[in-house]
């Protein structure tokens, strides 16, 4: 098949689905606290000889519903361009916090929901994510790292083929720079490292042809 435009097809499909956003909840909000965030970025590809992240974009809203428990929901602009509503909802739970409150672990179960307005198809991908954070300064800047996965519920692929990709896992490493109300996030994510990406046409940045490395930038404001 022709190269240029058809690569665009694969890129755009990958753009919507692969590694959609930065970590939603790093450290749970205080009870009653609210936060609005936006993130851009995505899996890295080699384009014109240079590495660039695919420009995914999403927004989310988080609400501290209890001490150590934050409800978060997000929407994805890129999918919407295709007539696909893509949302995610999750609950960030503080699983561990050190006595000094400098270290912690947040566990975030959630759901990723897709609904296609063209033919009314839908998909649900449960996810689980664990994020360790370290508050390394008095201004509450954070370094964090985590791991998570989407879970594939569809057991048979198109044409009744056996589903071989039961998980879409990732590991992440990031930094959150916090001001009084604003936060700025930079995150690296290694997505789908169990999958061989050497046999697909998109030139993903992929160590040893496995998965893809993504870069995300985020901004958020607390209320």
């Amino acid at each position: 098949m022709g190269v240029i435009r058809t690569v665009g097809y694969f890129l755009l499909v990958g753009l919507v689905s692969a590694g959609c956003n930065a970590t939603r909840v790093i450290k749970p909000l205080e009870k009653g606290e609210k936060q609005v965030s936006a993130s851009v970025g995505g899996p890295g590809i080699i384009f014109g000889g240079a590495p660039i992240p695919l420009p995914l974009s999403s927004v989310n809203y988080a609400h501290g519903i209890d001490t150590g428990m934050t409800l978060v929901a997000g929407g994805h602009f890129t999918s919407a361009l295709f007539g696909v509503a893509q949302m995610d909802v999750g609950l960030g739970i503080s699983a561990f916090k050190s006595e000094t409150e400098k270290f912690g672990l947040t566990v975030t179960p959630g759901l990723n929901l897709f609904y296609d307005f063209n033919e009314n198809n839908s998909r649900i991908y449960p996810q689980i994510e664990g994020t360790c954070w370290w508050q390394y300064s008095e201004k509450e800047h954070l370094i964090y790292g985590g791991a998570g996965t989407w879970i594939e519920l569809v057991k048979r692929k198109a044409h009744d083929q056996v589903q071989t990709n039961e998980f879409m896992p990732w590991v992440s490493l990031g930094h959150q720079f916090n001001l009084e109300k604003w936060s700025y996030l930079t995150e690296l994510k290694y997505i789908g490292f169990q999958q061989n990406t050497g046999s697909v046409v998109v030139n993903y940045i992929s160590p040893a042809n496995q998965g893809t490395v993504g870069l995300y930038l985020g901004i958020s404001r607390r209320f």
Partner: protein
Amino acid sequence: MRTTIFILSALLFSSCLRLDSLLYNPDSSIDGYYFDEFDGLAEIDVDATYKIADTLIHPFTLQSDPQGDNKTIHVVYVGDLENIATDTVFLYCHGNAGHLDFYWPRIKLLANVGEKNRFGVLAMDYRGFGLSEGPPTEEGMYKDVDACMQWLKDRGLTSDRLLIYGYSLGSAPATELTAKPRTLQPSKLMLETPFASDEVMVEDASGLSLPGSFFSDLEINNADEIKKVEEPFFWIHGTDDKFLQMATHGETVFANYNGSYSEAHRIEGGAHSDVPTVMGYPEYIEAVESFIKR
């Protein structure tokens, strides 16, 4: 509030992107067809051994779907026009890029099956490709290939002497018109690096089981259509195909065939567009000939 959400949703989803057109990569910038004199990029190179005499190269136009979405499409017949009523003919459905000149070396290979010009070859630029009018569409592509069948039928070709060969995107009209014949029923189906369906393309690209409808309105589904094909089936695919992976596309189509006879040629090291080259042209021609003559 609900009304506002409805209006915003309607606005957002009323003009959504679809990826259908990205599957077509035509080149309509040419000013004519030059065949052996073409000095642009061709998909493969073949040497002078496979040259076709100029007297046997017949470019022409025909009307596709004259009662409906009529378009003038450009076609080339390679062979003796006077013998169509008695010859066996390949109907060649090319891939999704460029134009006829881009695929001319492939057409020449088929014209060398058996012996030089043992079989006729008819190939066309689908609407939107090369000098053929109109934008490329899925149904338009089927109509254009069927218009070629009509042209052959008008010159005396019968179904039992029609062989259809689909390469890549061309696997769609080849399979569709064998499974659900319109003007003629091809007697044998040959597919090179076929794709299974849009669903499989989306699954391969995303790594998830997302429906094809998330991204396109294409209804091409060779993996299902092949189930209706009774005619003998020849499948050839490169193991290193990164566009349409052999395991997910070709193997699926091959496994779903339930007809009278099939043979598979998995070409080690073959990519999407170089299977005949990697296989070796004599070996490729011999494999096609062997299938036809069995």
